[in-house]
């Protein structure tokens, strides 16, 4: 656990007045607030640091304690005493939103919320000076799945903050798609509802197919004779191998579409995309003398 210089985080001097701290905080909060930095995890992290620094420096009692014991927080009776006093005050994990009035400082903690270990050990968790009830912070999480597991609806148990949550992942979930689990975020305060849990899915392709939307694409090798004379081949689909008829005189790179043999459509049971097959004609190698002479004969016809 490292000491955090909250003055440095807000870019203010140790002698900064309350007004200077407020100004510095607002300036930085406007720059790094999650609402103005969508999908920017770096900004979210920075915002949490700024928020934590403000939580301490804008509260005269906390600031006094921080100034007095800050650097020596790990040692000394005084620190322990301060900690005991703190435990009597509010204690909750994930920061809060204060909607009190238009002049109130912004003290919300967003996107996975929480304070640093340093803060928690010194002040015993984020605390509220406001009486307003507020919704708990939303949590962000991610889950990596192989593509094959998106072909059917899957049930999984995930662990968030030590709690096991059983989730159903509908077939057809896309890479980068997010699902919301209402009420599984940080708990609310003063009777406020819990936040939500957002899970972003990362899909890793572990198949020979390429995927675009719900359609799958596959390059299938066929030999010269099947391409020229026609025939049947076995083709892989997500539900097993199927027999496909190749027309005579099929050209290299010919594409065919197998309707409904693609990936499942998200939350539309029984609906599937298509499977596109591109034929790649493989020419024979290591020809025998007889084969060579026959090809020569063919070329002269």
């Amino acid at each position, binding site marked *: 656990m490292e000491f955090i210089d909250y003055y440095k985080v807000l870019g203010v001097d140790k002698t900064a007045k309350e007004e200077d701290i407020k100004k510095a905080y607002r300036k930085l909060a406007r720059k790094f607030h999650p*609402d103005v930095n969508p999908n920017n995890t770096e900004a979210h992290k920075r915002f949490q640091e700024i928020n934590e620094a403000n939580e301490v420096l804008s509260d005269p009692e906390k600031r006094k304690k921080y100034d007095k014991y800050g650097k020596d927080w790990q040692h000394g009776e005084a620190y322990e005493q301060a900690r005991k006093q703190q435990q009597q005050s509010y204690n909750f994990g994930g920061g809060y939103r204060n909607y009190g009035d238009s002049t109130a400082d912004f003290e919300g903690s967003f996107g996975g919320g929480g304070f640093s270990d340093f803060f928690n050990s010194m002040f015993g968790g984020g605390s509220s000076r406001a009486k307003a009830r507020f919704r708990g912070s939303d949590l962000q999480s991610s889950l990596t799945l192989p593509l094959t597991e998106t072909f059917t609806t899957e049930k999984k148990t995930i662990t968030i903050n030590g709690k096991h949550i059983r989730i159903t992942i509908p077939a057809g979930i896309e890479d980068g798609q997010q699902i919301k689990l209402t009420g599984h975020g940080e708990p609310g305060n003063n009777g406020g509802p819990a936040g939500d849990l957002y899970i972003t899915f990362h899909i890793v392709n572990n198949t020979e197919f*390429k995927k675009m939307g719900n359609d799958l694409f596959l390059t299938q090798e066929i030999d010269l004779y099947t391409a020229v004379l026609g025939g049947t081949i076995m083709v892989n689909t997500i539900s097993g191998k199927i027999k496909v008829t190749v027309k005579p005189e099929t050209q290299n790179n010919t594409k065919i579409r197998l309707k409904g043999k693609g990936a499942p459509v998200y939350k539309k049971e029984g609906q599937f995309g298509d499977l596109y097959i591109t034929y790649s004609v493989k020419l024979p190698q290591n020809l025998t003398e007889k084969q060579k002479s026959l090809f020569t004969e063919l070329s002269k016809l």
Partner: protein
Amino acid sequence: MAAQKLIAVKAFCSYHEINDEVFFEFESRNLIHLVKEKRSYYIPYNQLPLAEKLIRLHLQLGINLEGLEVILPLLERLQSQEDTLQKLAKQVNFYKPSF
């Protein structure tokens, strides 16, 4: 037609302990659409995230109404561009040759 889920502006504002006047300001500037029914105003359920965002930006970050009028469309545009970027990145990935 399916019934629309509505949240009373008064209930929302009292929950968040804010003055409901601010919502009429938002509406007068077309930042949010409120539904009027029997002399009461409601926020459509699907606009709840927007309502919360407006409050955060306006009351917590201190962005004034004129600022919101500028910022909100820019944020929308940013989000749409990020979506497009992600879509294009997927397409590039699709056409990458696999050896």
